[in-house]
């Protein structure tokens, strides 16, 4: 397609207020926990206190005898799940693993693993009833890190599991010849000839890095309300990033056709990848079927931390070869990511992304997906990429130091450009990587002098490939000259606005003339999750196509009104339809005549666009480290990113700022703390420490706009890549400030101080 020029858009690039803003600032917006239905029951979940245990017996009789308790369910209340790999969106997964994660079968595999659920007339009664369900456990030894898990003599969490050799990131192949305990799969990504690459090197460094488990930390806990009616039709109201994905999961677990399930997405209070898997929704459905009443379930915060999310704790070893002038000749990585209790860590993305900002002829990444007795990980903003980038960008910093080359200059010398081959063999086209590095070089922050003791500056790059996938939208021209825009993409942070802006641009009308609405799974075509940095890109494409259909139909209507050949009528970009003899009709004028010229006009589109534009980011950070306490203060932060076309620059900045701050949390304070028995010791937001207003400075943003030629408006996904560079940027800054190189994150005072103190 024609590369989009940086044309002067009318609507795109402006900063209008969001259509859902009024309801969200006045408290009227309806989130999932606000649902109340007649006769509604309240459900709660009983969770395993053990990280690894055989479930000998579950006796619900005392709970069932408790006044107000209406039903108790266990996994036995669900259809048997066959033990086969199915393709579920982005990742292949075994249905039995999915079902077992919702409710444990014969074994609890992590602290917090759901074992039973209860429905009662009141939330307090439901809570009381949990204590009356008798569960007999036989505790087993837990496996709590990738190192323990992959050791020769490690207990096998899934006794029949054998390491699978991945053919590509999402396609499992045969059993590996090298079975490793608890390694669900091995993926090798490779280009060039690694041996040759290291032979050409004049300097080689090899380092190890680890990251802890972090949670997505959305402020709204998971919630779901289900009503399974007498005709066997299931309706679910909930907070989800992907209503259709939820419908798919429910259909598989409940063995229902998708046509029997209607998923109604409520407003969503944050997700970051964590609100895609099913958790309580099938339990609420089963409890509703059992009781004949609607059942509402809301997680408490400790359940959110224990039973959902998190991201993988990781171990990454990286080896770099370079010439004295800084030219990288070879890069090798070994990545082992915790999957939690069931396979499916984003380790492949870690291996895929970490070297991608650079042109390196010989690369290899060995990626292991490792089972441990912790919650099954779910996607978290650029899943897998931050840990890989932490390793690579830290190692590059060490290399720069050894070669006495400026760290940004080292990166610029090796920058991937159009045509550079990535580790998966594909070549980049139209990327803004160099432009981002140049903008960093020219930024006020990089050119400022950092003064004061115990202070340091760090820099790091990040890469993320961004997603495409299916999107559906339709638009109706109203008689008053407005457009009703119906969306399948839930609005998690301004998507109504970003999509309304794109169709307004296509139709040449004002943003305020577009009325966007998000609808349920019975009301629109299949739309993939709001996630993967895909919504403004793919759903934006859908609304643009819908707009083009409206333009064509309105041209035909104008031709009919004027009684001229349709070929002589043209819908111009300013929203005016022009015909022969200076005839013209504004959008509002023709909208008012539709009911006399054949009825309503709608445009609709179902798209699955290729042409996603990859995202590159460079972050610069200044820190000060207290020499006595090792507390790290972030003094200044600048995030530079190629955003393609910024549809709504304030929202683009907001994505970058939010992602960067989550990365700051990963780097400094956020971490799951387990005891030796595998119990999570900090399942609250008091002890799981997310950044507050006082922990971060203003996040300065520099938007580089290299339009993506694969999109009508040049859109690149922007949401995920900002979480990729912060870990290494901060670690590099800490090193400059203290001389200590953090190789384990978070760089909490506990860890850092030990390294900083002079040896006794």
């Amino acid at each position, binding site marked *: 397609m024609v590369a989009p020029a940086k044309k002067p858009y009318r609507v795109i690039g402006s900063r209008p207020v969001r259509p859902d803003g009024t309801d969200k600032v006045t408290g009227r917006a309806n989130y999932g926990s606000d649902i109340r239905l007649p006769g509604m029951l309240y459900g709660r979940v009983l969770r395993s206190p053990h990280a690894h245990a055989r479930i000998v017996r579950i006796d619900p009789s005392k709970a069932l005898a408790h006044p107000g308790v209406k039903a108790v369910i266990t996994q036995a209340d669900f259809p048997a799940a066959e033990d086969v790999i199915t393709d579920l969106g982005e990742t292949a997964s075994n249905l039995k693993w999915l079902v077992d994660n919702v409710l444990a079968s014969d074994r609890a595999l992590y602290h917090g693993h759901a074992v039973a659920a209860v429905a009662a007339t009141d939330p307090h009664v439901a809570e009381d009833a949990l204590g009356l369900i008798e569960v007999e456990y036989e505790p087993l030894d837990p496996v709590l890190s990738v190192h323990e898990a992959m050791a020769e003599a490690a207990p096998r969490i899934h006794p029949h599991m054998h390491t699978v050799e991945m053919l590509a990131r999402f396609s499992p192949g045969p059993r590996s010849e090298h079975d490793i305990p608890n390694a669900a799969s091995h993926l090798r990504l490779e280009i060039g000839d690694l041996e040759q690459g290291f032979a050409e090197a004049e300097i080689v460094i090899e380092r190890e890095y680890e990251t802890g488990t972090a949670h997505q930390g959305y402020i709204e806990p998971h919630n779901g309300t289900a009503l399974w009616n007498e005709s066997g039709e299931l309706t679910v109201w909930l907070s989800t990033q992907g209503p259709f994905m939820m419908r798919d999961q429910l259909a598989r677990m409940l063995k229902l056709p998708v046509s029997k399930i209607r998923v109604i997405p409520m407003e969503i209070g944050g997700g970051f990848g964590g609100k895609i898997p099913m958790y309580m929704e099938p339990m609420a459905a089963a409890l509703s079927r059992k009781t004949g009443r609607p059942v509402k379930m809301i997680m408490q915060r400790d359940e959110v931390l224990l039973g959902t999310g998190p991201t993988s704790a990781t171990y990454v070893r990286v080896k770099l070869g370079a010439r004295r002038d800084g030219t990288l000749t070879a890069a090798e990585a070994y990545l082992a990511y915790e999957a939690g209790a069931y396979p499916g860590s984003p380790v492949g993305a870690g291996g895929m992304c970490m070297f991608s900002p650079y042109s390196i002829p010989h690369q290899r990444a060995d990626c292991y997906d490792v089972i441990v007795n912790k919650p099954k990980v779910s996607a978290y903003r650029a899943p897998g990429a931050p840990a890989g980038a932490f390793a690579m960008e830290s190692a590059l910093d060490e290399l720069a130091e050894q070669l006495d080359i400026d760290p940004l200059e080292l990166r610029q010398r090796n920058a991937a450009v159009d045509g550079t081959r990535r580790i998966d063999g594909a070549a980049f086209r139209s990327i803004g990587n160099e432009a981002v590095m140049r903008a960093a070089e020219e930024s006020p922050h990089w050119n400022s002098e950092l003064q004061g003791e115990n202070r340091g500056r760090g820099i790091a790059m990040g890469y993320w490939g961004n997603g495409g996938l299916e999107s559906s939208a339709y638009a109706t021209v109203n008689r008053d000259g407005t457009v009703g825009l119906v969306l399948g993409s839930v609005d998690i942070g301004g998507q109504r606005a970003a999509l309304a802006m794109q169709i307004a641009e296509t139709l040449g009308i004002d943003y305020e003339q577009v009325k966007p609405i998000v609808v349920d799974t019975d009301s629109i075509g299949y739309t993939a999750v709001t996630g993967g940095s895909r919504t403004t890109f793919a759903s934006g494409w859908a609304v643009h196509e819908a707009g083009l259909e409206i333009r064509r139909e309105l041209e035909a209507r104008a031709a009919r009104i004027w009684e001229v050949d349709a070929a002589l009528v043209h819908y111009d970009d300013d929203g005016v339809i022009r015909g022969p003899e200076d005839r013209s009709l504004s959008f509002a004028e023709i909208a008012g005549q539709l009911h006399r010229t054949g009825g309503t006009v709608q445009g609709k589109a179902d798209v699955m666009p290729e042409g996603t534009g990859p995202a590159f980011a460079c972050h610069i950070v200044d820190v000060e480290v207290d020499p006595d306490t090792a507390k790290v203060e972030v003094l200044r932060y600048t995030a530079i990113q190629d955003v393609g076309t910024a549809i709504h620059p304030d929202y683009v900045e907001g994505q970058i700022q939010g992602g960067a701050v989550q990365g700051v949390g990963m780097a400094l304070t956020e971490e799951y703390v387990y005891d030796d028995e595998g119990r999570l010791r900090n399942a609250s937001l008091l002890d799981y420490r*997310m950044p507050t207003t006082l922990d971060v400075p203003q996040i300065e943003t520099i938007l580089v706009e290299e339009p993506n030629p694969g999109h009508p408006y040049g859109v690149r996904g922007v949401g995920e890549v900002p979480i990729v560079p912060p870990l290494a940027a901060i670690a590099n800054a800490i090193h400059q400030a203290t001389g200590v190189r953090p190789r384990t994150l978070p760089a909490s005072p506990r860890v850092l101080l030990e390294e900083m103190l002079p040896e006794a």
Partner: protein
Amino acid sequence: MSVPISVTVNGRLHELEVEPRMLLVHLLREELNLTGTHVGCDTSQCGACTVLMDGDSAKSCTVFAVQADGASVTTIEGLSAEGGMHPLQQAFWDEHGLQCGYCTPGMIMSGVDLLDRHPDPSEQEIRRGLDGNLCRCTGYEHIVNAIRDAAGGAK
């Protein structure tokens, strides 16, 4: 076992019988259907449940309903008595001080308390005033801007 309380919410007096373990936030949400006050963490870190109690900000997830006996409570729904929007609500909308919107009512209520104490706050005063409210989406910058905007653009 329930306890009689009388509490004024958004200017209206309510005489209610509540269970002693009922939290104020559940009284507001379940009994009075004021669902703009949100629950995020249950343990008073996130501030999504912030309301005003007798004029001061309070985290309603950590107040028992019986403790509100005799108090006057203002929620996000009662912020603008005349209908229309409170300047802080308008500022959060205008300055894009929200993404998912879940923390927003609590942020705005804390903002009211903050501007009450510091009508012309510095950035540091704003950050200090909001440090009991977590936002996971925005990185806080647009929220700080919104407070500043509501205070009349004071620096």
